């Protein structure tokens, strides 16, 4: 029992969340024809379970939205169950809520059918469903069940005694000494058998709990190997029991924004050096890159990948960068920043960039956990004016990483939202290949970044829990990729 409790406790404390770390909810801004929806999907912690959905519509007025869950790929993706109507709020007709049953683990999508003043339209948002934690039993419920359990055991003993000692007597006849003796014996035997049954039930329950705990989602393992300034990354499965690592082929990884892996390296414990890097496939078993010059120290690695079925994962590992690594430049599409350490206090809403530009966060008054909002950032040139030479970075107006300072939350998101772009394309009829990417809202892959874009970027997101977060924002102007850093104290 102790082992089991310890297991539950560990799981409750350390909740991974596939696409990101500790940030399972999906925040997505989608366009469906003339309608613009801000979608929040809160998947359950247990599968099968019920996901909660919220939609705020802007653009053309929306009358009704119906929702249908289907797996993202495979045979079952072709047979949707009947759809459910979302409820619109009486106070705010543009706000809709609903719930969906997700019956199996894996890569799902929620299909939205919208009806409104501009006719019908539809869109889909991917959502990954994985069992994440085991719920411990609250004490009052435990006590109630224990009391009822005792009543059942004692009741069965009393019934057995009455059955043996009295039930076969003719009506009105009082039990004699022999019946009483037999009743006592029956009570003792029944008590023993019932307790044995209770023990059997308890063993069964433990076995079910352990089997369930075995299904709890764990991301694939990531093993970094640094030789000189060459970093090799192996993806695989780590066997906790045997302390062995088994490599896994990387042939099912889809390129996301042109890269099969987006690797964030954040120096611990001060979060005072951050790198957004892009290792490339070197062989079936490993990804490789030349490490740019990095201040020595221990880095926490967060590696975003997307599997062919649209299932996104964030793999984590620690990397020790020694002082004597041969220097190398940062690759053109990579980014870095050296903000003040966490211990030096909270960063403000304006971040001075090394080349004289400034990034500004239009910080909301109130930052509370589990509240969906759009986080807006602006890029200003050295004269303090909106940067006229802003370009898309990796096909988007910007990239954001929301990282909790205790390491329990990491979410790499984009202007459309927190779902992976590849999964978004699979959900909306794309093949999951980069050729289709130009059709996505907010994306500008086809222009090749030649045309300037507005120096403003918005990220739909909600912090999963209260605490201190550091936010890293990448935007690009001319050929420079900037990383702005901001701190958030979330209630």
């Amino acid at each position: 029992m102790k082992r089991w409790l310890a297991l539950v406790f560990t799981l409750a404390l350390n909740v991974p969340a596939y696409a990101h770390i500790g940030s399972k909810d999906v925040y997505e801004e989608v366009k469906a024809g003339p309608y613009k929806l801000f979608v929040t999907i809160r998947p359950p912690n247990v599968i099968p379970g019920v996901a909660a959905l919220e939609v705020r519509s802007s653009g053309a007025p929306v009358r009704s939205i119906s929702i249908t869950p289907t797996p993202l790929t495979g045979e079952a993706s072709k047979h949707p169950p009947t759809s459910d109507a979302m409820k619109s709020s009486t106070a705010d007709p543009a706000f809709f809520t609903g719930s969906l049953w997700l019956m199996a683990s894996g890569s799902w999508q929620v299909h939205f059918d919208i009806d409104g003043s501009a006719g019908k339209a539809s869109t889909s948002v991917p959502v990954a469903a994985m069992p994440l934690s085991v719920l411990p039993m609250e004490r009052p419920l435990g006590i109630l069940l224990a009391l009822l359990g005792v009543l059942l055991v004692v009741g069965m003993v009393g019934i057995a005694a009455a059955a043996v000692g009295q039930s076969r007597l003719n009506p009105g006849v009082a039990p004699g000494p022999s019946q009483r003796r037999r009743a006592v014996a029956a009570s003792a035997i029944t008590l023993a058998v019932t307790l044995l049954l209770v023990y059997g039930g308890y063993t069964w329950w433990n076995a079910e709990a352990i089997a369930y705990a075995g299904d709890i989602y764990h991301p694939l393992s990531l093993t970094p190997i640094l030789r000189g300034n060459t970093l090799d990354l192996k993806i695989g499965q780590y066997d906790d029991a045997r302390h062995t690592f088994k490599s896994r082929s990387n042939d099912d990884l889809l390129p996301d924004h042109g890269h099969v892996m987006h690797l964030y390296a954040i120096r611990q414990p001060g979060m005072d050096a951050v790198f957004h890097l892009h290792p490339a496939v070197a062989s079936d078993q490993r990804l490789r890159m030349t490490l740019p010059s990095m201040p020595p120290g221990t880095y926490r690695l967060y590696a975003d990948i997307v599997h062919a079925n649209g299932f996104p994962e964030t793999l984590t590992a620690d990397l020790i960068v020694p002082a004597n690594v041969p220097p190398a430049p940062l690759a053109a599409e990579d980014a870095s920043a050296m903000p003040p350490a966490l211990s030096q206090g909270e960063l403000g809403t304006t971040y001075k960039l090394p080349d004289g530009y400034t990034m500004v966060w239009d910080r909301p008054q109130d930052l509370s956990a589990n509240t969906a909002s759009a986080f807006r950032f602006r890029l200003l040139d050295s004269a303090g004016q909106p940067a006229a030479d802003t370009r898309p970075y990796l096909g988007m107006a910007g990239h954001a990483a929301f990282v909790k300072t205790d390491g329990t939350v990491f979410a790499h998101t984009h202007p459309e939202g927190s779902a992976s772009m590849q999964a978004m394309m699979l959900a909306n009829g794309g093949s999951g290949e980069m050729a289709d990417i130009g059709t996505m809202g907010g994306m500008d892959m086809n222009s090749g970044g030649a045309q300037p874009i507005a120096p403003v970027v918005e990220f739909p997101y909600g912090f999963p829990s209260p605490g201190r977060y550091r936010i890293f924002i990448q935007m690009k102007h001319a050929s420079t990729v900037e990383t702005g850093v901001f701190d958030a104290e979330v209630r």
Partner: protein
Amino acid sequence: MSTSANHPAAFASPAAGAAVKAHSARIPWYVWTGVLAITSSSIGGAWDVSWHRSIGRDTFWTPAHMAIQACGVLAGVICVWLIAQATLGHDSELKAASVNVFGLRAPLGIFLAGWGCVAVLTSAPFDNWWHNAYGLDVKIVSPPHALLILGLRGISTGVMFLILAAMNRAAENDEITFKRLQRLLLYVGGLAVVGQMFFVQEYTWDVELHQAAAYIAMGIGLPLFFALFWQASRSRWAATSTSIVYTVFIIAEILILPLFPAQPKLGPVYNTVTHMVPAKFPILIVAPALALDLLWQRVKNWKPWQIALLSGFVFIAVLTAVEWPFAKFLLSDASKNRFFGTIYFQYNSRADGADRLRQWFHPDHGIVLYTGLLKAAVFASISTWIGLLFGRWMRGVQR
């Protein structure tokens, strides 16, 4: 209502001889209510399984759940009423025909049914927590569901004892009441057989009927009930009657449920469903049941272990001889109609699964099959023996 009208012959003491004759053949309301409660939970159970196979999504308040809950409510009402009457009331006949459990009085069956109600009640918050902790109904057999089924079985056994005690008292001097109660007992016994077959259904799916496991499961589960009802009901056709109740119940389900439209409200959907999906065609347990009844009419003076040993082998031999070829028929095109119901598949039945392809699922052959069937016969003998002993004991139950 007078006291004697409330508690007619069935519950009178032998001393109240005049009352016995005057009110003979009247079954008290609480017996009918108990029978209704068990019928409701049996229908609710079958309905609920169909609901999960056709629609998938449910709430606490689906009609199927309400039919099951109605069983608990009805049983609860008669338990509270009878315990109050026998403990606090002035009905001497009822008091005389009741047992004492921790100072409370009532017929033994009422305490059993009451225990079942508490178990059902306990299972509700437990099951709710289970869903939140480990996910919504993935398995039929989970600890909270086992407790629920145990509770429903408790209620059903309790009502059976309520009928049995009254029937045993009427056996001596009230033929009409005895016959009526005997029929009720066999009906309730038939529903218990339905429950038993429900419990082993994961082993007796039609595509699994060429596996020894199906016969082992039925060998363990059924002869106990047949022997028990034979002894307890004193009917020469107890096994046949109870197995007919099961057969009629399942065939009715196959004919009735698909009349109602239904659509899956859960994904993944692998099979388009437009109507409620019924159970698979009943196993032909009527054949071995009839064989057992015929056998028992000839060997009733044997020792129980001798009867049990022979019965176990007869049961498995007849069951296999009948069901083995019949299962082949169920997998053939000839059975694809509304009566045999092999045209119905649940919404999450995969196109490449054995059920949809109408193919045997891991069939057993040769030595594995024969040792499996031998095992089934031995289990069936032990099962019969336990049923005989307990059934004989039940014949003596008076209150």
